[in-house]
């Protein structure tokens, strides 16, 4: 990326840090921990749902349940948690712009999130094409679908923790 991009990012972070809203988040001791708690609870809802869908794809759990009905139970949880995650994430960025936006781990996390959203859309589309009688993907296809999802979600959660160390 061109140097001017980083200069502008620096300037943007500095401006954001100086806004009254950011100042309130920075100076009220309980705001950041509280936002992080909301963020983690939303991650828990997503992690549980992702586990259920992927375990079902691999037939490790609920193998007698039609795949589309498992997806109908858990995909909405993921999509509903997403705005909570984005909003709480945004508030953390406003409170600590340089710690996040300029952090290579954070930047990686954003890419992983975009990829996992695309993957979830793909999964949803595929399942929507199946009738209620279909019990699932073939073993190889299921594995090929599950593997990127698990790698991405684990990467996202690990990256979230590692932001604090960079």
């Amino acid at each position, binding site marked *: 990326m061109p140097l001017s991009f980083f200069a502008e990012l620096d300037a943007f972070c500095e401006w954001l840090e100086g806004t009254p809203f950011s100042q309130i988040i920075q100076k009220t001791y309980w705001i950041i*921990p509280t936002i992080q708690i909301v963020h*983690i*609870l939303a991650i*828990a809802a997503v992690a549980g749902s992702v586990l259920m869908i992927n375990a079902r794809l691999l037939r490790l759990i*609920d193998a007698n349940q039609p795949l589309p*009905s498992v997806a109908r139970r858990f995909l909405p949880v993921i999509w509903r948690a997403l705005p909570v995650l984005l909003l709480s994430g945004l508030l953390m960025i406003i409170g600590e712009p340089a710690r996040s936006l300029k952090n290579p781990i954070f930047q990686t996390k954003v890419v992983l999130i975009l990829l996992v959203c695309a993957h979830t859309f793909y999964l949803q589309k595929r399942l929507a094409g199946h009738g209620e009688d279909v019990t699932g993907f073939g073993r190889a296809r299921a594995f090929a679908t599950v593997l990127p999802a698990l790698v991405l979600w684990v990467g996202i*959660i*690990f990256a*979230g923790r*590692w932001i604090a160390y960079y």
Partner: protein
Amino acid sequence: MWFEDFFQWLQDLDIPTRIREGESLFPWIESIHVLAIALVVGTIMMVDLRLLGLASMDRPVGRLARGVLVCTWIAFAFAALTGGLLFAANAVTYAGNFFFRGKMVLLALAGLNMGCFHLGAGRAIDNWGAGVTPPPGARIAGGLSLTLWILVICFGRWIGFTLK
């Protein structure tokens, strides 16, 4: 006092010392801890919400719980193991922290709640088929579990902000 000596002895052991003084061991273990806790709470929430009659109503409670709770227990084993390692690395500090102590009490209460449920209202679990809202005793257990686990996450996050 004896337990202070014990915590000092614990954190002076080889592995805790390496975790404390290493460059990246602590954050790696912490990452696994966060992932494991997210899975524990994310899966146990499903059972709690079903007990409360608020979600997965098209599934019988017993079958849902048996499938989901296997995942919960595996994730809990990882959370306890990584949590134990993180504690051992700074045992003296954590042992003196209000939120750490509170988190341990909350975990004990969550376990107690689960035990009471199994010995009490939970014995009728196979009677709660699809569409059935469990009786008040089970709903109370579900609500308590949900509350306690949310508090475990709250206290856990506050530990990081109150260490001295």
